[in-house]
């Protein structure tokens, strides 16, 4: 029992004064605790908003930098890599995969090459794969 209850322990008669003190103290403390949390969360929200704004700004400046990089790309990709594309795969798919790889190359700074594109063999469904991973995961 804490200090507050030990102070009240002497008087446990359910008289008006005691009941009123429980109700008023109770409501006040509950509101006080939660108001403090409201203030903390509000301040936290402000910090978060400022952080988001900063991130957006830096992302925007990165984008501007990227434009200059874009201009330089043709020079970087002078080494020609002709991927071995399996018959039946459409040109659009090859273009999408190539674009994705160029994008990743730009971000990581590594020169990635697309060597071949093949149709994947039929595999487990997502559910079966998830089940397998779950069952074989070490403790």
């Amino acid at each position, binding site marked *: *029992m804490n200090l507050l209850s030990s102070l009240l322990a002497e008087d446990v008669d359910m008289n008006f004064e005691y009941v009123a003190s429980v109700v008023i103290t109770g409501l006040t403390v509950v509101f006080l*605790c*939660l108001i403090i*949390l409201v203030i903390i969360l*509000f301040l936290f*929200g402000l910090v978060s908003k400022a952080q988001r704004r900063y991130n957006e700004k830096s992302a925007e400046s990165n984008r501007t930098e990227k434009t200059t990089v874009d201009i330089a790309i043709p020079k970087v990709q002078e080494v020609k890599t002709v991927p071995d594309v399996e018959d039946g795969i459409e040109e659009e798919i090859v273009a999408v995969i190539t674009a994705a790889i160029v994008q990743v190359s730009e971000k990581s700074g590594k020169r990635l090459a697309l060597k071949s594109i093949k149709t994947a063999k039929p595999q487990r469904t997502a559910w079966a794969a998830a089940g397998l991973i779950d069952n074989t995961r070490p403790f």
Partner: protein
Amino acid sequence: MIDKFIDTLRDLAVTSGFAGFIADGGWKSLIMIGISFVFMYLAVSKGFEPLLLLPIAFGMLLTNLPFTEMYHPELWKITGEGIDFGKVLHEGGLLDILYMGVKLQIYPPLIFLGIGAMTDFAPLIANPKSFLLGAAAQGGIFFTFIGAALLGFSAAEAGSIAIIGGADGPTAIYVSSKLLSSGGFKIDTGTIALAAYTYMALVPIIQPPIMKGLTTKKERSIVMGQLRPVSKTEKIIFPIAVTIVISLLVPSAAPLVGMLMLGNLLKESGVCDRLVKTAQNELMNIITIFLGISVGATTTADKIVNKEFLGVILLGVAAFCLGTACGVLFGKLMCLITKGKVNPLIGSAGVSAVPMAARVSQKVGQQENPTNYLLMHAMGPNVAGVIGSAVAAGVLLSIIPY
């Protein structure tokens, strides 16, 4: 030889459970078994909080079958040195052993761990004002305390009954098991748990008339703005901040709030998948079974078939109604202050009962405006209600001597 045969049959008859029903006060056990059947029916056929109501009802059945010796109320009587747990371990039945988790206040915080691992506090973080609605709905607890005092209950009993208004089963069990731990009371933890879970199941029936009665059609039709996105960092810092603030202000609330927030931190950290899975599923389910059956076991005939239980039932429903009304009225106040940006219906979700109370707000709101989606807005006060009721529990435990 025939005499011996008849004697054996007589002995068997005397020691059988049927003889227990004929014995003094045995009829009360029959009533309790009947009540357990009603609860089983409500859980199975009507889907009223079946995960807890069914184990509670079965515990009630087991404890009221004469001579089963699974639960011994006499072992839980307080002596000069408190409860003799050694005696409970040596002489107790299965349900006595399981009941130790309730008496030692182990199960409710562990259930809170699971709840924390399942709760998304993002709507509350995005709209911190929701905390105020969660606080307002706790008014039901404290106003019911007045009613219990007027009906002649002692401070510990009144506090135990009042906490039903928090609409949070584990909190009600935690508070009542502590406040009533000294024994000699007219009610017990089982009575409180039974009333709390019954009313929690009845939230969709109890709340809508109050919500409609206290709001205008125009207020119920208010469409609230979209909530801001919440970052992962905020979600991780939230449980740590709440634990520190609440535990420093109301230390008695620390076991409940601390475990709730630990569960949430495990979830939001994203690095404890296995622990989160256990807290959400296996641990939660095991504790739910233990809690339900052992609480049900305490509902012996002499604790239920009396006028005090009727008082608990009446005050319990009053607590729920008052909590809902306080939340809605505070919602109206916020609506007024924000010039119509807050739909007062989300205030009723401030009583815990996650997520049922939020669903009720959504449903009542959609009755007025089918394109209005209040669910995420109502989840804010709803999860704030869980924290609020834990704080209220801590306050009751601090103020009321036990």
